[in-house]
């Protein structure tokens, strides 16, 4: 059956018969890679331009339409040695890119103005204590106004807009006092300059904007980086479906291009690409990633199947159902809606600080004015002093205190393979006191592992090499152990039964018990609930090879470390009790519940919440998505289903569980530093406000205090980096190139198994390979 790949969804057509596509590329790590990819693609006929963005690990390519197809480009990349997958550019990403550039432009303008105004301000400060004439001083003030007024109007836009939005919604954020402070400082300075006064605050206003824009830009850039990276990972999973068109021909299309009503063919061992109803075929599907159940479910014509489950022995023709028509997904969506609505979003630390800060400072300013009037000062002096209070307390340090820590913590987590989905997750994750784990794919590895303990290595190798010729999901687990990567010549797969081949002149069979001629009553069968067995027969010898879910390699020490930190651990699983008990007991978790539906998982979490527990939910299945949304904070392994990933606060990469522990440690540290920073800001104000109230705050003092406190909180934020991955538990993923190479054969072997872990294209790649 001829098979074509349809990538048209990803191609943007230009006017003059050109086409453009963007691809996420995996495994790019050095200068050589850039050259290899760009030069390799440039040699293809019709390619106009290929440019790899190394920072984003994305390749953008233009070619003359018709001379070469998109699939040829992907194939060429694969031939050069890079796994790549095109993705449809999202509008949100283009918006982010524009927003980032805009912030950078604002930052540049503010920086330019701050530097040049300082040139004039320092002259005025030194002139005021020496022999500067008032004419020169006025000239310098007017020049400052000339620079700062347009610069502040332009560079302050991010704050003015945000403040306006908050005020319109009758809310208060940090940008409101910032906007008030900057506007008053500028207005006062203009008035004072007009009246030939000795002091003006132009430099303070623009310096404040510059510092705040630095924080704002870094925050945004960090967020964008993690978002781009998560986008690459999702795209590199490269999920394809085999769509049957009207004539019955088979077309390979990306899963995202499937529409309700399409008919897709799901071969044995492939992942079901979308929710749907079986039109034809009989098989058993492994729904581990959907429900947590590890035993395959038998399905027949008319049965519903869910995206993400893995097809077992038989080929299925599935009719894609309209979104929300599947019963389980429907239920999950409904619960999600409820969970999100019920979630009382905790007020962020920064907003809480803003709510306290603004009234206190504005009252202090008012009291200052009244105090000076009572003391007999002129109205002018009273108002000038009151505004000086506002300027000097302008929340430079407070507004930087939290974003600075967030940026450093997000970067620290990113380097350890933990991708934050949203910024305030740091605060919420730091507050948790209970960790709820899902079992399948979370405590255990997403892929089953062969348990060949005590078997002859030669026999296992033979079976594994034979398994290379099979598409069955269990065989894929076995095939990963094969040292010799080329399949036996002449190996034949009988769908639904097994594979056979001639090895050393004797027939070898691998597959079901019956296929290998083993009677179901033979010893060693069915005494183990948690394992599925593959039978192997070669010559006269037979063997049963158990394939089971295995714990993540560091699950036991990580769980022990979590307990040692005083956290309560609970396992909530959708799997059978027989499968959950050994896992929970092996880890020493006494509080475990099995056979739960998504609704029951939420109920369990709600119950914990009603006891004032703050729950961190760690889960990967579709059935976990509502629980993730309902919990105080949530984490998902990168192998989780799309819907689940979308509702997790953070994703972690790799085979290890250590990122859970590390995330908790980093976020706790980060929250402690946020509080410290706020305290530092309060201490600063405790000194600065009395000085300003006494009318002694000169622009020089304001400038020194403002930059001093900003630098102090920023340096303090860097101390998040002190938290290093726990060496005794092994580094939390940091999947370098070696680990990536190790994963690659597995990925190549079973490209459609959802568990294939896309590589974490590490940040700090060591040298050329």
């Amino acid at each position, binding site marked *: 059956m001829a098979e074509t790949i349809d990538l048209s969804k990803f191609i943007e057509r230009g006017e003059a018969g050109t086409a453009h596509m963007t691809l996420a590329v995996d495994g790019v790590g*050095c200068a050589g890679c*850039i050259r290899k990819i760009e030069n390799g693609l440039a040699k293809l006929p019709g390619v106009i331009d290929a440019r790899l963005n190394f920072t984003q690990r994305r390749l953008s390519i233009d070619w003359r339409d018709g001379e070469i197809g998109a699939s040829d480009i992907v194939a060429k990349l694969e031939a050069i040695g890079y796994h790549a997958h095109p993705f449809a550019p999202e509008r949100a990403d283009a918006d982010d890119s524009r927003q980032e550039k805009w912030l950078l432009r604002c930052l540049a303008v503010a920086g330019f103005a701050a530097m040049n105004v300082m040139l004039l301000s320092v002259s005025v400060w030194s002139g005021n204590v020496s022999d500067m004439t008032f004419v020169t001083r006025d000239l310098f003030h007017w*020049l400052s106004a000339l620079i700062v007024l347009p610069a502040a109007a332009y560079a302050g836009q991010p704050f003015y807009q945000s403040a306006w939005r908050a005020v319109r919604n009758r809310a208060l954020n940090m940008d409101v006092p910032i906007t008030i402070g900057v506007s008053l400082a500028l207005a006062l300075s203009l008035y004072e300059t007009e009246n030939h006064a000795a002091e003006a605050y132009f430099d303070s206003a623009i310096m404040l904007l510059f510092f705040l824009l630095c924080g704002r830009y870094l925050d945004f850039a960090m967020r964008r980086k993690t978002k781009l990276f998560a986008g690459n990972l999702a795209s590199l999973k490269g999920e394809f479906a085999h769509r049957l068109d009207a004539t019955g021909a088979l077309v390979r299309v990306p899963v995202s291009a499937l529409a309700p009503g399409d008919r897709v063919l799901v071969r044995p061992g492939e992942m079901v690409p979308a929710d749907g109803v079986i039109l034809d075929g009989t098989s058993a599907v492994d729904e581990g990633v959907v429900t947590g159940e590890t035993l395959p479910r038998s399905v027949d014509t008319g049965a519903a199947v869910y995206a993400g489950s893995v097809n077992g022995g038989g080929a299925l023709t599935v009719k894609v159902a309209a979104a929300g028509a599947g019963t389980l997904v429907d239920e999950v969506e409904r619960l999600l809606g409820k969970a999100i609505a019920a979630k009382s979003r905790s007020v962020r630390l920064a907003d809480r600080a803003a709510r306290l800060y603004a009234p206190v400072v504005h009252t202090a300013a008012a009291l200052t004015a009244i105090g000076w009037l009572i003391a007999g000062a002129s109205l002018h002096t009273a108002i000038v002093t009151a505004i000086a209070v506002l300027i000097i307390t302008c929340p430079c340090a407070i507004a930087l205190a939290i974003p600075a820590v967030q940026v450093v913590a997000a970067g620290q987590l990113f380097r350890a393979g933990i991708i934050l989905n949203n910024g305030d997750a740091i605060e919420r994750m730091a507050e948790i006191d209970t960790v709820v784990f899902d079992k399948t794919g979370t405590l255990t590895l997403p892929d089953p592992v062969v348990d060949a303990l005590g078997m002859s290595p030669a026999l296992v190798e033979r079976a594994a090499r034979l398994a290379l010729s099979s598409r069955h999901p269990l065989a894929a687990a076995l095939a990963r152990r094969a040292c010799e990567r080329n399949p036996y010549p002449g190996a034949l797969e009988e769908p639904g039964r097994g594979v056979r081949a001639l090895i050393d002149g004797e027939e070898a069979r691998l597959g079901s018990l019956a296929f290998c001629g083993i009677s179901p009553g033979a010893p060693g069968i069915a005494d183990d609930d948690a394992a599925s067995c593959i039978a192997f027969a070669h010559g006269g010898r037979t063997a049963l090879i158990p394939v089971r879910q295995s714990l993540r390699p560091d699950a036991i020490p990580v769980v022990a470390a979590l307990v040692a930190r005083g956290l309560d651990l609970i396992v909530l699983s959708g799997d059978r009790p027989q499968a959950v008990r050994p896992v929970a007991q092996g880890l020493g978790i006494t509080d475990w519940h099995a056979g739960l539906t998504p609704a029951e998982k939420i109920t369990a979490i709600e119950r914990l919440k009603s006891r004032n527990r703050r729950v961190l939910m760690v889960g990967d299945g579709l059935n976990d998505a509502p629980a993730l949304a309902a919990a105080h904070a949530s984490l998902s392994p990168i192998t989780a289903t799309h819907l689940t990933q979308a509702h997790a606060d953070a994703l972690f990469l790799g085979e290890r569980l250590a990122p859970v522990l590390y995330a908790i440690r980093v976020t706790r540290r980060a929250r402690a530093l946020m509080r410290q920073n706020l305290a530092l800001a309060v201490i600063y104000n405790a000194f600065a406000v009395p000085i300003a109230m006494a009318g002694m705050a000169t622009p020089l003092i304001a400038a020194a205090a403002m930059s001093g406190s900003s630098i102090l909180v920023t340096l303090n934020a860097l101390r998040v980096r002190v938290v290093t991955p726990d060496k005794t538990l092994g580094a939390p993923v940091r999947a370098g190139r070696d680990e990536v190479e190790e994963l690659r054969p597995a990925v190549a072997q079973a490209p459609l198994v959802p568990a294939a872990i896309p590589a974490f294209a590490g940040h700090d790649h060591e040298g050329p390979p």
Partner: protein
Amino acid sequence: MNVLIYLVPLALLLGLTGLAGFLWALKSGQYEDLDGAALRILPDDDVAETQQVRQNSG
């Protein structure tokens, strides 16, 4: 103090030139791929081979 008449505009002009340079660099996409730019300088395939041999032997 007459020196200010040309020193101050000169200082501002220098600053504005820097700002304009930055904005131009931003607009022409030079901040799109900072890590890549650092690496792209390493391959020397733009140097002709004979030239390279001469350098190595010299």
